[in-house]
């Protein structure tokens, strides 16, 4: 425990900037986009004032932001960028490159709905469209967690058995622009937790030249892809152990791949992610007062997906309810699909209902979550389990026919 923690009122975005400063990032490159902008504004302030000894590369697009970090990371620098929605999609090609080249870049993604129709509010479909890119994808649910998880992300990414980029994500405005009291650890303690970046084993070196990402023939490509999959699976252990070590040194622990809330005696489990996970805790409290034994699993890691722990906790429940802020058009819910395929592969037979809610920043309140749980319980009782996810709170009527 560290009693000298300095508490500041920070938005989620400023919390990310403080984390980057504490992590002694060496190269930052980013292009502004709502709602990410205030992260890089704060970072440029830190660099300008000499509080952070980093190169800040100004670029003309997100594609160039990631491309310049790929260059910097290829020679062994600790690097950071941040983006949202359209910016992330524009960055797309090199997002995959960063993972394939095994570069431990950390990126903040302030989740925002994709256009058209134009929207600046939260929705997870932007980052989840990079689900299969080889990036480790972590979700924070409040400003404090944004700070803590961003610092942890460097330690996870730079692990020599992992060496994969990490995206730390949080919801637009509800987290990114809302002031919360945030405890800022001392630099000395973070320096102990996160050692100075050493060049990775495949850092480019002029004395012993080689090429990175050159053409690879069908005889070798699969082996390289499998090594990413293995690193991703190994990352499950490291995400948990880094969370534990952070807890011991700094005093805050979240649970690694998932955060648990009243799950042991629960009959019904809510599975959700991001800021809905915060509202869901209140909903659990409220439903428990009505003698409904509800618990919550807040997913903190989407890649790697916490299949083992999820199936372990869900196998003896009466009902699981997945609430997500994302959709795979014509294919169900992105998170629901992962949960259901996990259940099938791990022989979990718990009835599961998925809800698509809160797209485009529509509020998902405590009442909404209570409403979903009540409706799902009714369906279970009546034996009317849907084959497809349900769209929660969608208006019907003349205008929307």
């Amino acid at each position: 425990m560290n009693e000298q923690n300095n508490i500041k009122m920070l938005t989620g975005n400023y919390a990310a900037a403080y984390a980057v400063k504490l992590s002694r990032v060496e190269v930052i490159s980013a292009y502004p986009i709502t709602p990410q902008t205030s992260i890089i504004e704060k970072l440029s302030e830190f660099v300008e004032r000499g509080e952070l000894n980093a190169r800040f590369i100004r670029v003309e697009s997100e594609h160039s932001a990631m491309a310049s970090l790929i260059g910097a990371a290829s020679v062994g620098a600790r690097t950071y960028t941040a983006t949202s929605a359209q910016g992330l999609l524009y960055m797309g090609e090199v997002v995959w490159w960063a993972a394939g080249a095994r570069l431990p870049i950390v990126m903040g993604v302030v989740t925002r709905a994709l256009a058209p129709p134009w929207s600046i509010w939260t929705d997870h479909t932007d980052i989840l469209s990079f689900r299969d890119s080889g990036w480790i994808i972590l979700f924070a649910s409040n400003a404090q967690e944004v700070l803590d998880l961003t610092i942890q992300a460097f330690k996870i990414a730079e692990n020599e058995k992992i060496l994969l980029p990490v995206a730390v994500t949080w919801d637009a405005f509800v987290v990114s622009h809302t002031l919360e009291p945030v405890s800022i650890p001392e630099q000395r303690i973070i320096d102990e937790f996160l050692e100075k970046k050493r060049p990775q084993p495949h850092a480019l070196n002029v004395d012993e030249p080689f090429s990175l990402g050159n053409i690879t023939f069908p005889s070798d490509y699969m082996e390289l892809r499998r090594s990413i999959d293995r690193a991703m699976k190994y990352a499950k252990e490291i995400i948990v152990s880094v969370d534990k070590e952070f807890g011991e040194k700094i005093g805050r622990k979240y649970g690694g791949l998932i955060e648990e809330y009243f799950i042991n005696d629960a009959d019904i489990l809510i599975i959700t992610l991001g800021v809905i996970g915060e509202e869901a805790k209140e909903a659990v409290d409220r439903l428990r007062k009505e003698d409904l034994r509800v618990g919550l699993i807040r997913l903190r890691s989407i890649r790697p997906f916490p299949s083992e722990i999820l199936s372990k906790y869900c196998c003896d429940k009466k009902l699981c309810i997945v609430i997500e802020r994302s959709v795979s058009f014509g294919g169900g819910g992105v998170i629901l699909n992962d949960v259901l395929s996990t259940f099938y592969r791990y022989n979990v037979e718990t009835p599961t209902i998925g809800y698509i809610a809160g797209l485009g920043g529509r509020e998902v309140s405590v009442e909404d979550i209570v409403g979903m749980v009540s409706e799902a319980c009714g369906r279970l009782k009546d034996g009317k389990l849907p084959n497809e996810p349900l769209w929660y709170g969608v208006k019907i009527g003349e205008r929307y026919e």
Partner: protein
Amino acid sequence: MSNYFIPPISKPSIGSLGKTGSWRSLYPKLQLDKCTSCGLCWLYCPEGVIEIIDDKPRIDYDFCKGCGICADVCPVKAIEMVREGE
């Protein structure tokens, strides 16, 4: 190197993919009597298959892919691109 981490790196070596000269459809034909030994062909060759020996270029046809850059940059037209087999 563990099987968790196989980086996509490759080290330069001669002919690791076989003799790439077989990819060629046109080959650079040298006319050494016109050559002024300026060295531009040697400088521009993207494959590094031109050597200067006794002040004159020599092309390694085992690895020349026939791109024609040497012929293009030659100021005295001492290199002509000729279809293979002609």
